[in-house]
């Protein structure tokens, strides 16, 4: 990978940024010294377990906790009668959250199999689990509904009939959210188009499956404050929400995010912290809560399944005049992210193609299934699966080469993007200007890397000594997809950074920004070091502790590098200015006469002082002071990164098994602050996207129980299931971003599934419009096509 050329549009004399520096936490990880949430837990901490509903929809008539409480080692059993009833959303979004407040810490109704019923705290996990089985619940079972379109029909059981929920679009119709956005006059454009084509696609519940399950540890410290150490993407939202639902002041809560073992969106949520904090407050004792792996599947926040109908009007020469997507989203039994994810399915995908009229319509329906939430891409992978398969189909229908058809209609640098302005996340959107667009370079890199017999893995299918000869018929094919995404949520993402000078010329960088393993600690440290003219080793990064680090919305919406990065750059520039003042004093001149280069302040006449010397003098010199500067940044823009994926697949015509034999994912990220870490995102997203396309889906029984809540039955890729994924970085140096960055963590997901589905079509002539492309599904389609 390191030999791959990075296509750079502009060179820069950068010394720390752009370098493949080792992660600041790398050494601790490889030595086994990195500390995750569970590593901080005291031996004598309680363990609390959630009692969960076996029914998809029921009222709780009575809960008898006497037997459970009588068991030895049981500390506490709580039901809805014992906790505050305060409506909230579990979504880790900035306040005021655009999700309905339809959830309660513990409720008198259950709405999916696995919903919270009660909590049991005991001296250890085994005791807590035993006691949870001794809790007796009387339910009044209600009819349940599992299909989002059925849920919105007349006569469907009403899932949220509680009077104290707010923010639901139409509760009696089970509609959590409803979206309509139009640019131009789309019906007119359809009427005048030479050709109109419509297709419907279906996407599935997909689970993030982080290697570390959700885990939260709460205790009361020596001055009576509630301390929560938790695996979260959003420490500040956790603090606010936990305080609110526990009726305590925000200032009485401290939230710390240590190392976490992956998130991908599923930890952008209050899954355990409200309840764990509550048990700590009630008992005064430290409490650990950790989800078992099966709970991790049905008790967290998988990807919203969607039915997406794409309709496009084109002229004979291939010009797109009208482009529309209509979505029915299944938001599960609570509305967390129920407006914003469906909104993003359109707002991230539709801008890719210039059309005179664009329309996006979406409804998010409640069903009695697990709660959907934030998952890398946040609606865009669903939107692009549909859109980029549809574009392929339309191109073929009008007899045009699929890549030529795209090129003819792609958005370009210099264009405005009007549909984004109509699709703000619960508020007025911002009209976006596309200043940098490296999609052409992405297309060149990805298309040249795949399908030329240039690699990809053989093996798999156990092709053994004898071989299977005529009894294994395969076909290979190549497909592609394009994409663009966003960078942060305009008008909403805010980040703060504080930089403090130490006398040895090291600097403490305090950031709220949340490193999920993504490396944000490292790259924000790199930015700081670059501006201050020091090395990364001179920057001491401390992040995600609500007592010490400035406010930051957290790691989501692909905002950290751009938004937190801007705050860091501003703070570093302020610190450099303060030190420049000291340097000027020390050298008997004025700041305007000093230049800064190579870490040195240089005065006319040859005098110079290294910034480290200035730092020392700032603290111990004549005029002693502590230089420490804070800056914050509210993001008002959303510059799109771009991407292209080319995939080669091998389809086994006898079993329907699809294998990706070669794949290239090329992304215009603006600037790669640390190319190693950016490559890690591009390749990691591709691996996840392959699972999304081919193997990952949650399956439910007729009663709404999750059937495959285990790693045995929910297949994520092992090292044997993937080719050597090729990732490519393109840099276009975005003027609005610190050092030219845009983003990488979500855009890299978007083109993968459609590229694979298009490749299967190329291999077999069979078009499948439902994810995932399981072997059984593919075989059925092959048979229907006579293969």
């Amino acid at each position: 990978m390191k030999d791959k050329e990075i296509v750079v549009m502009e060179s820069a004399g950068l010394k720390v940024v752009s370098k493949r520096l080792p992660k600041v936490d790398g050494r601790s990880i490889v030595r086994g010294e990195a500390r995750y949430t569970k590593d901080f837990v005291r031996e004598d901490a309680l363990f609390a377990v959630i009692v969960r509903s076996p029914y998809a929809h029921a009222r709780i008539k009575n809960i008898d906790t006497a037997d459970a409480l009588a068991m030895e080692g049981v500390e506490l059993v709580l039901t809805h009668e014992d906790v505050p009833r305060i409506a909230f959303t579990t979504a880790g979004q900035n306040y005021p959250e655009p999700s309905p407040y339809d959830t309660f810490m513990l409720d008198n109704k259950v709405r999916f199999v696995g919903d919270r019923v009660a909590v049991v705290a005991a001296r250890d996990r085994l005791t807590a689990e035993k006691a949870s089985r001794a809790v007796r619940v009387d339910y009044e079972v209600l009819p349940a509904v599992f299909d989002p379109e059925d849920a919105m029909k007349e006569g469907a059981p009403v899932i949220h009939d509680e009077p104290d929920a707010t923010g639901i679009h139409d509760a009696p119709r089970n509609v959590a959210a409803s979206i309509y956005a139009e640019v131009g006059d789309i019906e007119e454009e359809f009427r005048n188009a030479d050709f109109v084509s419509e297709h419907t696609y279906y996407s599935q519940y997909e689970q993030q499956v982080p290697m570390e399950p959700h885990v939260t540890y709460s205790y009361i410290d020596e001055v009576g404050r509630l301390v929560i150490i938790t695996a979260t993407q959003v420490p500040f939202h956790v603090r606010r929400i936990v305080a609110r639902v526990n009726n305590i002041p925000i200032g009485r809560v401290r939230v710390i995010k240590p190392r976490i073992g992956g998130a991908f969106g599923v930890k952008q949520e209050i899954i355990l912290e409200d309840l764990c904090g509550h048990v700590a407050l009630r008992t005064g004792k430290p409490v650990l809560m950790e989800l078992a792996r099966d709970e991790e599947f049905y008790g967290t926040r998988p990807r919203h399944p969607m039915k997406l109908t794409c309709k496009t009007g084109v002229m004979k020469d291939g010009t797109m005049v009208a482009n529309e997507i209509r979505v029915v989203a299944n938001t599960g039994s609570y509305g967390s992210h129920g407006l914003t994810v469906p909104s993003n399915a359109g707002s991230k995908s539709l801008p890719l193609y210039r059309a005179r009229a664009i329309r996006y319509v979406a409804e998010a329906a409640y069903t009695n299934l697990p709660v959907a939430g934030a998952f890398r891409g946040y609606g865009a992978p669903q939107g692009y699966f549909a859109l980029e398969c549809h574009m392929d189909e339309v191109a073929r229908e009008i007899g045009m080469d699929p890549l030529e058809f795209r090129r003819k209609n792609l958005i370009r640098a210099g264009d405005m993007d009007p549909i984004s302005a109509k699709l703000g996340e619960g508020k007025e959107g911002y009209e976006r200007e596309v200043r940098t667009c490296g999609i052409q370079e992405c297309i060149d890199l990805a298309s040249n890397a795949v399908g030329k017999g240039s690699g990809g893995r053989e093996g798999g299918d156990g092709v053994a000594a004898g071989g299977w000869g005529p009894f294994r018929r395969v076909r290979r094919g190549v497909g592609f997809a394009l994409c663009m995404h966003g960078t942060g949520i305009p008008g909403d993402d805010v980040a703060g950074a504080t930089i403090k000078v130490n006398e040895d010329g090291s600097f403490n960088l305090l950031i709220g920004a949340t490193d999920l393993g993504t490396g944000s600690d490292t790259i924000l440290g790199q930015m700081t070091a670059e501006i201050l003219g020091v090395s990364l080793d001179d920057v001491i990064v401390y992040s995600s502790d609500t007592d010490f680090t400035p406010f930051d919305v957290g790691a989501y919406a692909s905002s950290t590098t751009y938004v937190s990065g801007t705050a860091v750059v501003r703070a570093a520039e302020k610190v450099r200015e303060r030190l420049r003042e000291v340097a000027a004093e020390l050298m008997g001149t004025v700041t305007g006469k000093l230049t800064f280069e190579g870490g040195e302040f240089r005065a006319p006449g040859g005098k110079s002082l290294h910034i480290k010397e200035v730092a020392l003098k700032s603290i111990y010199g004549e005029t002693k002071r502590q230089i420490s500067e804070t800056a914050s940044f509210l993001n008002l823009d959303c510059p799109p990164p771009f991407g292209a994926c080319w995939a080669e697949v091998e389809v086994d015509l006898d079993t329907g098994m699809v294998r990706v034999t070669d794949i290239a994912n090329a992304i215009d990220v603006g600037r790669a602050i640390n190319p190693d870490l950016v490559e890690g995102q591009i390749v990691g997203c591709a691996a996840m996207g392959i699972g999304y396309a081919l193997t990952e889906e949650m399956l439910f029984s007729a009663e709404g129980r999750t059937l495959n809540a285990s790693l045995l039955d929910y297949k994520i890729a092992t090292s044997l299931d993937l080719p050597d994924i090729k990732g490519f970085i393109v840099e276009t140096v975005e003027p609005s971003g610190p050092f030219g960055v845009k983003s990488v963590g979500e855009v890299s997901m978007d083109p993968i599934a459609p590229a694979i589905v298009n490749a299967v079509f190329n291999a077999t002539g069979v078009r499948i419009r439902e994810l995932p492309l399981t072997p059984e599904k593919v075989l059925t389609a092959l048979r229907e096509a006579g293969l």
Partner: protein
Amino acid sequence: MKEFRQFVVAGSPEEAIGLKRAIGPGALYLAGGTSFVPFIKTPVDVLIDISKLGFSSVVVGGGKVAIGATTRIADLMAPELREAAPMLYKAARRLATPLVRNMATPGGNLAYAFLPSDLAVAFLATGAEIEVLGERARRVAIEDLLKDGWLAGDDLVSKITLAGRGAGQGTGFAKFGKGEVDIALVSAAAWLEVSDGGVAGLRLAVGQTSSMPAFLEEAADKARGEKVTRGLVETIASVASESVEPTNDHRASAGYRKHLIKIMVSRAFAEAAGEAGTAIAD
């Protein structure tokens, strides 16, 4: 934490069997433990560790391969065994993961044969003599073990003996899962002996998720004396898929499994023909 009361390291087979007989279903033999330790839900009284009874090695000699029941499955993949018993590598290489294979044992894999056991399917095809200790001590052909209701009571498998590979013989193993690392949705194993271009002997077995393996005598018999052609393979595979009741669950429908059985049997057969040195005629 798993709910076990007592862990006893048996010093002799008699001690292990005596303890099991005395306690009954509340006692479990433990070798690798990989089949049940992760999944145990109800408390177990006693675990009887049988891994130190000396059943942990493989002996090749006298035209036979004798496998101790508590040998680590990873060791069955040793290069030294590939000549004498090529089926071992084929069946073991996709059995769970390398981590599991470093603990799991063939005895344990047979005892939990309904998962399905890849080794049980493989041994039914190659033929194997199973040595069982206990009240019903016996040395029995594996297909007879299947007919008699498999293992029960204090049955303790001590040794599995395969015939070493002879001239004109070949094996094949085909496993289908949703990914490379998976419990078999469907697996198939074949053992073939050819002479004068014709089938001298064929043995077939099929495994499916959550089912005991099936030994397909009827399908295999149809091949005897026939020339090894593409048509024969297809016919036998079809008969095989008709003779097994396909399971139906959320992992795969009955119809799909039925089809997979045909495909996997044909692939295992073809692989065996290749290894036996016979080209499949059109």
